[in-house]
């Protein structure tokens, strides 16, 4: 309200209203609540009751409207007039109170209501402990405001008279009043728009329009200079001291044109930089499997395995990863979400093969160790193929069971049995080679395995239970080994073609008798014993996984889906754009630019995230983006609706844009917090396609808020600060483009 000193191009009033009906009731808008004394008076019960009564009495006598609307309006206009002229804030505050109370004397009689009003005001102000000197200013202003004997006795008094007389409008005419009868009704009825212009440098002008013309009414004030819509702000005039509080009241987030332009430029540079990076590196979005075709498999731990140890599950994922690597898929994605393992194989067409690879149990083999060849041994390179070659062969399938083979053991496997997926694998040149005999017993013969304290009570061991056949074979095998010494006494446990462990048969096992009733492998720690038991028990993956979902998408369908999603998004954007332009005109076109910028940033962010954190865009993700178009458009709409509200309150284009930004941004933050909460909760808790959806929705919400604070704000602000653009009718910023004219039948 404090800003209402200037006017819009088509004459929206200072602190008044425009067309009929817009401000028939004055709301206690938040911006007005910053005049403490006025607020105190407004809360005064007796004064309020009197003003209500005044209006009723005047109504009964056939006078125009004189209720809270008039009181509030005159108070605020008086305040604005003095504020704009750079008067002391305290004086302006007194004028506000005087303006508010000026007609209160009508509660006694219309005749001499100025003087009776001054006395009533005295009573009210005394109760509020107002200083005597201030009281005098208010009382004299009220006592001297009537036209019959009115005198401008002080600044306060002058402001009240001006404000009072400028409240001329058709809406003040009571329903059913005959305009033939009363001069007040006639004058008021003739006016559909009125405003008060206070020009700090020149004069004070009142201006009225008759209901037919867009031209200033020369009959009312002839020597009116050509209306200039851009009234110089007071602070531009060095002669006028700027009251301190005025600076803060230009809107909590006020910014001048230069600042806005700077934001706009920085923002555009940032977006340009983002896209330059993308284009220079030739980055493309990572498409999910449903958009490029392929096979998606979802695995879950089979029921009945008790509590699932996530670390062990990670090891399982690692085993699967190794196998999938053997498929030669370009960019397989194997991920664990909670207890769910998701295997995405883009470009794979053979669903059955993919299923086999994942479901296949790992191959467990027991072999006789013929010789251990360490990397430091002189003939290391001559024994068998290199470990790197063996790694590749390994992925093609298990080593032949009935042949002597050379297999490798990574040092990690020796130390910790199962690979730690976090640790980087050691180079294959450092792996130990083993010359091994044919398979003696395999995983199929293992029935159970468990960790327990060894016989001495000091060490840990993993015990094995074989089926009947396995038990006999194993006994014979260890009986032979027990007769040997050195490497030949060892047996190798081979899993998926890698030597996991090669323990020697214990020295106390007698030659020729072997280990009956299952095997026992001594290890260093409890952890190791349990890990080994896990591997042996499952005969395969540390944790048994069941296939829960198997989904295949053909590349054609994927491409069509992508195209459909993009088309829908584009059509959606175009339709929304058309709607915004129809509703808001030029400033609606600015909203379309905001939407386009939103699209550009979201697309850029998705591409960059695809490159940096491996985000893949799925169909559900595209749906999330399309939904977020609505959210982005909403921000633009809230801003524009707020702007219209501010104009209706009587602000100028520039200040309305500023104030609208502050309140619209607060609303945007509140609303987006809720949306973001929804997205975050979904992303964290949900499984399956929901996460892709939640991710893009959450991202878009963040981008929307960011965009609002930068691009949207500066673009709108810049337009509002550029008079040529702001005043153009096609821009849709001026009041006449969205404030309706009075209904025709009222005129008759």
């Amino acid at each position, binding site marked *: 309200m404090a800003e209402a000193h200037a006017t819009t191009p088509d004459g929206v009033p200072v602190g008044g209203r425009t067309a009929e009906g817009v401000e028939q009731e004055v709301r206690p808008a938040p911006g007005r609540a910053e005049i403490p004394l006025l607020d105190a008076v407004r809360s005064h019960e007796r004064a309020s009751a009197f003003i209500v009564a005044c209006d009723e009495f005047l109504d009964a006598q056939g006078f125009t409207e004189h209720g809270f609307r008039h009181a509030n309006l005159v108070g605020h206009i008086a305040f604005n007039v003095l504020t704009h002229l750079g008067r002391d804030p305290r004086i302006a505050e007194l004028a506000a109170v005087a303006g508010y109370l000026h007609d209160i004397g009508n509660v006694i009689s219309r005749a001499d209501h100025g003087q009776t009003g001054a006395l009533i005001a005295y009573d009210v102000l005394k109760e509020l402990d107002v200083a005597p000197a201030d009281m005098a200013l208010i009382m004299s202003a009220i006592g001297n405001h009537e036209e019959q004997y009115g005198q401008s006795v002080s600044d306060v008094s002058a402001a009240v008279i001006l404000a009072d007389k400028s409240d001329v409008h058709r809406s003040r005419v009571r329903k059913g009043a005959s305009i033939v009868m009363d001069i007040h009704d006639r004058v008021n009825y003739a006016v559909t728009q009125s405003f008060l212009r206070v020009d700090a440098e020149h004069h004070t002008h009142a201006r009225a329009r008759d209901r037919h013309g867009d031209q200033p009414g020369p009959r009312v004030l002839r020597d009116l200079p050509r209306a200039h819509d851009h009234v110089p702000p007071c602070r531009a005039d060095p002669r006028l001291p700027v009251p301190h509080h005025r600076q803060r009241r230009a809107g909590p987030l006020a910014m001048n044109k230069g600042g806005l332009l700077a934001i706009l430029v920085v923002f555009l540079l940032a977006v340009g930089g983002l896209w330059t990076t993308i284009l220079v590196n030739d980055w493309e979005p990572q498409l999910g499997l449903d958009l490029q075709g392929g096979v998606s498999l979802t695995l*879950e731990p089979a029921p009945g395995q008790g509590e699932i140890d996530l670390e062990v599950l990670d090891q399982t994922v690692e085993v699967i990863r190794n196998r999938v690597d053997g498929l030669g898929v370009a960019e397989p994605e194997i991920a664990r979400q909670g207890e769910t393992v998701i295997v995405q194989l883009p470009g794979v067409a053979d669903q059955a093969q993919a299923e086999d690879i994942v479901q296949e149990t790992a191959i467990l083999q027991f072999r006789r160790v013929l010789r251990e060849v360490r990397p430091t041994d002189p003939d290391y390179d001559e024994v068998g193929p290199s470990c790197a070659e063996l790694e590749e062969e390994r992925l093609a399938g298990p080593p032949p069971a009935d042949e002597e083979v050379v297999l490798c053991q990574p040092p990690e496997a020796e130390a910790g049995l199962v690979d730690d997926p976090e640790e980087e694998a050691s180079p294959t040149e450092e792996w130990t080679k083993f010359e091994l005999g044919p398979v003696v017993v395999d995983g199929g013969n293992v029935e159970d395995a468990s960790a327990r304290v060894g016989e001495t009570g000091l060490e840990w061991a993993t015990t094995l239970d074989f089926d009947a056949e396995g038990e006999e074979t194993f006994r014979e095998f260890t009986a032979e080994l027990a007769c040997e010494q050195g490497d030949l006494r060892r047996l190798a446990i081979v899993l998926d073609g890698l030597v996991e462990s090669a323990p020697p048969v214990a020295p106390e096992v007698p030659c020729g008798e072997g280990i009956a009733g299952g095997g026992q492998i001594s290890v260093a720690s409890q952890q190791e014993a349990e890990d080994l038991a896990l591997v042996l028990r499952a005969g395969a993956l540390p944790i048994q996984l069941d296939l829960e979902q198997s989904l295949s998408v053909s590349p054609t369908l994927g491409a069509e*889906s992508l195209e459909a999603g993009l088309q829908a998004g584009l059509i959606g954007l175009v339709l929304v754009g058309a709607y915004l332009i129809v509703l808001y005109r030029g400033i609606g076109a600015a909203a379309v630019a905001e939407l386009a910028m939103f699209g550009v940033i979201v697309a850029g962010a998705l591409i960059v995230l695809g490159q940096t954190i491996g985000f893949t865009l799925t169909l559900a993700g595209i749906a999330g983006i399309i939904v977020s178009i609505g959210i982005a458009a909403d921000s633009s709409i809230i801003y524009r*609706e707020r702007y219209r509200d501010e104009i209706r309150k009587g602000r100028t284009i520039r200040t309305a844009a500023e104030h609208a930004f502050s309140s619209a941004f607060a609303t945007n933050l509140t609303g987006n917090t809720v949306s973001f*909460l929804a997205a975050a909760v979904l992303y964290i808790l949900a499984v399956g396609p929901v996460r892709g959806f939640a991710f893009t*929705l959450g991202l878009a919400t963040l981008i929307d808020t960011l965009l609002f604070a930068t691009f949207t704000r500066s673009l709108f602000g810049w337009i509002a600060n550029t008079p040529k653009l702001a005043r153009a009718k096609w821009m849709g910023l001026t009041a006449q483009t969205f404030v309706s004219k009075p209904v025709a039948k009222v005129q008759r």
Partner: protein
Amino acid sequence: MSAQGKDTALRRFLNGEGDYAFISRSRTWLIVSLAIIALAGAALLVRGLDFAIDFTGGTSFLVAGATEEFTSADLREAMTDLGITDVTAQVVEEGQGALVSTPELGEVGGEADRAATAALAEVTGADPVDIDRQAVGPRWGQQVTDQALLALVVFLGLVVVYITLRFEWRMAVAALVTLLHDVVVTIGVYALVGFEVSPASVIALLTILGYSLYDTVVVFDRVTEETGALGASENRTYGELANGALNAVLVRSLSTSVTSLLPVGALLVIGAQLLGADTLADLALALFIGMGVGTYSSIFVATPLLVWLKGRDPEVAEHTERLLARRGGSV
């Protein structure tokens, strides 16, 4: 005469100058809402929901590039020969493709799945590799649902806390009730029309909740602003102020709904034409319904409910009473 154009009810409405009595007709909206909820509940009870295989477990086959002539009866027969009953089969793409779905066939990716694929390949003459199979175990469907429900509960908890902190608890309650209203109605529409409930529908439902809340929060934001100065000098009741706030955000609410529904509508139309892109169409459908309901409820359910709740606040009640008495006395 000028850019203002004719003064019509529509123009007034678009310019946000309408003055519609929302609050004073709360009773009407209550009856309308109760009727809709009753209808939704009845549909749910009578018809139930049609859950997709993602929830019940099962396998669906999408055959492309068929080279032989076949009918849906042929497809069903091939399945029956394998001992698979309760099959739905459909010939699509002018005989070039087929959609077949069956109940759960043992293990996912197991023998039965493979046998069915082979049988379909034989009937249609398509390359088995061109048959996209989507097999879902029942546990997975259960997990998707459980997680979604968990997400829902957590989300609602957070929202109640947020709204209570940002505004007040009465608004949290009103928003929550509004939300439930939207969910019941949306689910009711699914039951009534017989749409299949897929994971995409669940996503959509959760989004609708977010949207509905977003809309309600925006309205409440304005109500809070308008009613903030409710004091002795305020000559309008809480209900009247709230009604003013509703009118003030009416254009925004409707415009936002239109701009949200336009892209979703585009998604719906385009997605529906595309074979197999169920995610898109399912999502769009649920969103389309839900957003419509959400817009209705933010205006006709949330705020009237809030005003009713506020009427139970002694301070507000006293203010209203005093005002009404003052007005009554002045007649």
